[in-house]
């Protein structure tokens, strides 16, 4: 379809793809670090108030209001405070933060400086997933530039306030995107999530008050001060300000990362000429995962929904990390869920029994059904196993310390709810109805 989606002025992605966009020089020419100058003249409490007013919500998955999170850090604590940046982008279907890190890392660094000053933080750790070699090189180069330019170091833009920023690379563990596992990893340990409460804002890194923010969240902060909190808030809905990045992948004509308004719908993202440009000839949408692989799947008749936290909550799914995965009508739903289930089994940290035992169990059952060995009762068993990890509909956290359990159970519940007939057909016919083509045929490997 032609472009009918509302046009927005890109904020975060404005410079992507332009020559040398990752350099300090380029960032400064675009007004970079002016927001930091403004913020440094404000009282820290006033900065937090501005961010609250902007309705900026966390872009890492949970959508928690950023200003509110910052306000939980105790002001009278004698301990040092820390900022940890979550760049462990590993949720299947999510690939937006790497473009910020590769193409405009200074935007995030400016957000870091503003956040740190507001929170009284003197040390920030930027934690990137281990596989991000190139994004890490670009980010480290930007940090080095910022030190040289007097943005980090003993003084920040001449102000008597010390801020150090260190980059740390993980080593291949999805669980470290969970904020308390990330803190464990930053402390040099295996990534086992901690019980909450206490929340990191009170007891975080090294037992000290810590804010953990996603890369895109921090990259959104400068715009709040450039445009003003009210203007930034007005770009979005009553409860969710600004613009956001969404990642479109799967069987569409033009996958990629797009900056959209909070009013842009899934249908617009998939079909609009500005974004996905629809499905390849002869194909129809069967299913869409709207917010990373842990978000409950939607059917083809449910796409007229804004990609925004509250709107997707009404559909009993979530905006999550912005990873939209489209599956067409030639895609086998059992095979798809098997792939997703395998991921969670692989990435379960092993700390809680329901997740450690339940995630491989789901995977075995799905493989059995997909390979035509399924028996009557297997679907109920699958549903039972998923419910033992986390019941459906969700009533807060499931039976595990962290949300990975829920992330592993939600896809199972939602696939069974919407596509149960396909699971039953596998068992009835003792084979995958899609034969040896469970993925349709796309790209060069069809």
């Amino acid at each position: 379809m032609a472009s009918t989606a509302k046009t927005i002025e890109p904020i975060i992605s404005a410079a992507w793809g332009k020559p040398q966009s990752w350099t300090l020089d380029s960032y400064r020419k675009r007004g970079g670090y002016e927001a930091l100058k403004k913020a440094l003249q404000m009282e820290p409490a006033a900065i937090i108030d501005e961010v609250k007013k902007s309705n900026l919500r966390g872009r890492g998955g949970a959508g928690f209001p950023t200003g509110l999170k910052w306000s939980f850090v105790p002001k009278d604590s004698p301990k040092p405070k820390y900022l940890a940046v979550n760049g462990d982008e590993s949720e299947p279907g999510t690939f937006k933060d790497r473009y910020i890190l590769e193409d405009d890392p200074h935007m995030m660094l400016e957000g870091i400086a503003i956040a740190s000053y507001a929170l009284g933080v003197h040390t920030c750790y930027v934690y990137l997933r281990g596989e991000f070699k190139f994004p890490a090189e670009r980010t480290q180069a930007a940090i080095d530039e910022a030190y040289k330019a007097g943005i980090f170091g003993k003084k920040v833009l001449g102000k008597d306030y010390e801020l150090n920023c260190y980059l740390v690379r993980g080593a291949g563990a999805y669980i470290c995107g969970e904020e308390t596992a990330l803190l464990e990893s930053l402390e040099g340990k295996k990534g086992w999530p901690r019980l909450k409460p206490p929340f990191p804002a009170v007891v975080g890194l090294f037992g000290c008050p810590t804010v953990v923010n996603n890369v895109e969240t921090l990259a959104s902060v400068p715009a709040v001060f450039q445009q003003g909190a009210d203007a930034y808030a007005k770009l979005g809905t009553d409860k969710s300000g600004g613009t956001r990045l969404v990642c479109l992948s799967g069987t569409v004509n033009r996958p990629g990362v797009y900056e959209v308004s909070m009013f842009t719908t899934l249908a617009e993202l998939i079909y609009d000429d500005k974004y996905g440009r629809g499905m390849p000839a002869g194909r129809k949408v069967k299913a869409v995962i709207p917010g990373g692989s842990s978000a409950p799947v939607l059917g083809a008749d449910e796409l007229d929904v804004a990609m925004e936290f509250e709107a997707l909550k009404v559909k009993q799914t979530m905006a999550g990390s912005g990873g939209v995965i489209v599956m067409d009508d030639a895609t086998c739903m059992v095979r798809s869920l098997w792939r997703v289930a395998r991921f969670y089994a692989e990435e379960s940290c092993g700390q809680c029994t329901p997740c450690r035992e339940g995630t491989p169990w789901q995977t075995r059952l799905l493989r059995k059904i997909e390979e035509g060995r399924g028996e009557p009762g297997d679907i109920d068993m699958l549903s039972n196993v998923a419910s033992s990890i986390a019941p459906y509909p969700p009533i807060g956290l499931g039976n595990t310390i962290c949300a990975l359990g829920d992330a592993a159970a939600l896809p199972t519940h939602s696939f069974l709810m919407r596509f149960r007939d396909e699971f039953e057909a596998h068992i009835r016919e003792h084979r995958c109805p899609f034969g040896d083509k469970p993925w349709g045929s796309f790209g060069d490997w069809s």
Partner: protein
Amino acid sequence: MAEPLFTSEEQKTFDAGIAEIISHYPPDRKSAGMLPALRLLQEIKGWLPPDGLRLVAKHLEVTPERAMEVASFYVMYHLKKPGKYVIDVCTNLSCSLWGAEKMLAYLEEKLGLKAGEANEKFTLRETECLASCGTAPCLQINEDHHESLTKAKLDAILAKLS
């Protein structure tokens, strides 16, 4: 006498690297440097030999068991010497929708290895999402990403690996 872990050149790189790493953390929190220190060791040796783990533990003032615990938790650390080229193929949902399973089968046949196997030259593994879902299918070779792979593109990449 056992062979020393490092050449003198490697020793210099390690000493400078470990000092830099430790300087990023509070003085009583040296052990926080575990992940970067293991990465440093692996960058020098290509894997994490037991002597190296003991050395890292000593510098960070923890037990060798603790170093091993961390090293064995994260998939990017090699506790055995891998092939010269470690090929990690993503087969998660977005990549599978663009043919990753077939790409893996092609690699298995071409390299004569099943996923999870290794020889001197190659380690072939199935891996989880590499955050390249919009440029599927993808794989990484020794941490370098290769995206939007076609058969021709993959052949050209493999031909360059000597």
